[in-house]
């Protein structure tokens, strides 16, 4: 599987964990705010391009690919600090660093790091934009399409063993299978 596919599926997975409450043991589906979506889109693109440039200009020529987790940590820490500062201004009185607990930050953290990870050294700027776009598409799929599926699943008579998380994961598998054709070859064929 190529980078575009990975970025799509990892965003899909991370969003499923939080939006479907798998990680918070909650059955309620949280709606995503449009502002968060655009903010994440901007951050993913900015970070993907930044990481890609640093990667191809520093890590690859100096043969320091093993240090890529440290580079990720640097960029993510910058994101942490920036988000905390923004959060501090938005909610006066709350202590510095409380933004870590905010659900949108959890989402965006995964979103950013996956965009970073999916940026490969050989990708051009167009490739990075495509990777970010596919990640966004994954986010869109998991937050909007699957929300409708979940509400429909609730009405179906399902075996008690598969109720809740198992059936959610199986339906996510079917959605993922349906979108497995969306990779680099899909885009190449689309534009040819």
């Amino acid at each position, binding site marked *: *599987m190529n980078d575009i596919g990975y970025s799509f599926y990892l965003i899909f997975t991370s969003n499923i964990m939080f939006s479907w409450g798998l990680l918070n043991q909650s059955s309620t589906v949280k709606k995503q705010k449009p502002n968060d979506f655009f903010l994440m889109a901007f951050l993913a693109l900015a970070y993907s391009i930044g990481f890609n440039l640093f990667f191809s200009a520093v890590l690859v020529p100096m043969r320091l690919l093993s240090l890529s987790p440290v580079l990720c*940590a640097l960029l993510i*820490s910058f994101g*942490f600090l920036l988000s*905390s500062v923004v959060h501090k201004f938005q909610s006066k009185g709350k202590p510095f660093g409380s933004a870590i607990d905010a659900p949108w930050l*959890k989402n965006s953290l995964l979103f950013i790091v996956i965009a970073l990870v999916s940026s490969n050294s050989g990708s051009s700027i167009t490739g990075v934009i495509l990777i970010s776009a596919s990640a966004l598409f994954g986010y869109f799929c998991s937050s909007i399409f699957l929300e409708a599926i979940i509400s429909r699943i609730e009405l179906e008579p399902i075996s008690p063993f*598969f109720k809740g998380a*198992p059936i959610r994961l199986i339906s996510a598998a079917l959605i993922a299978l349906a979108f497995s054709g969306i990779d680099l070859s899909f885009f190449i064929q689309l534009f040819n």
Partner: protein
Amino acid sequence: MNSKIESRERTTMLYGLLPLLILSDSLAIGIVLSVSFLFCYIVTTVFLLFKKDNKLQLRFSLILFFIISICLSLILSITRIINPFLFELVFLKVCVIPLVPVLFKIQFTQNAKDHEWGLRELLYGLLFSFTILFTGFLREFLVSFSFSAIFQSADKAFPLFPMFNQPAGAFLLIGLALGLGRYIKQKKGKSSE
């Protein structure tokens, strides 16, 4: 009651492994990811043992984050020496590990952090990393009816369920495993009654 809550918490933490389970699509990759994850889990646990209060601090999380990343770089360097081809496949996947929700989740724990807690966390760390390893093995086995720990294509392999190489296969496998686990648990409960 407490054990029930803890068991539920641990199941929730297993869901937090999902990104790694998706990435672990062969035994060789599973080995690298599970060893890296276990190393990070142990480092996080040891650091939390030295932390006196249960408050979440940004500075502490960031320091821990950097230490984990440096440990991962070390593991990647060793992987590069052992198998350069495998390194090419995993070096970007490993970057996901510091942000796996499980590592964040244990930072929120309200339990008293003593040696007993540390040992228990070590056991859970082993369980989580075994889950990553086993998922990699099972997916590779289901795809080609063969497996290889050194990432070389097996000559006698034939395609069985190619779908399990895809993330869709990982979702399906985890969903079915959860359902099967619940079924076995209920059967066990009934037979003990």
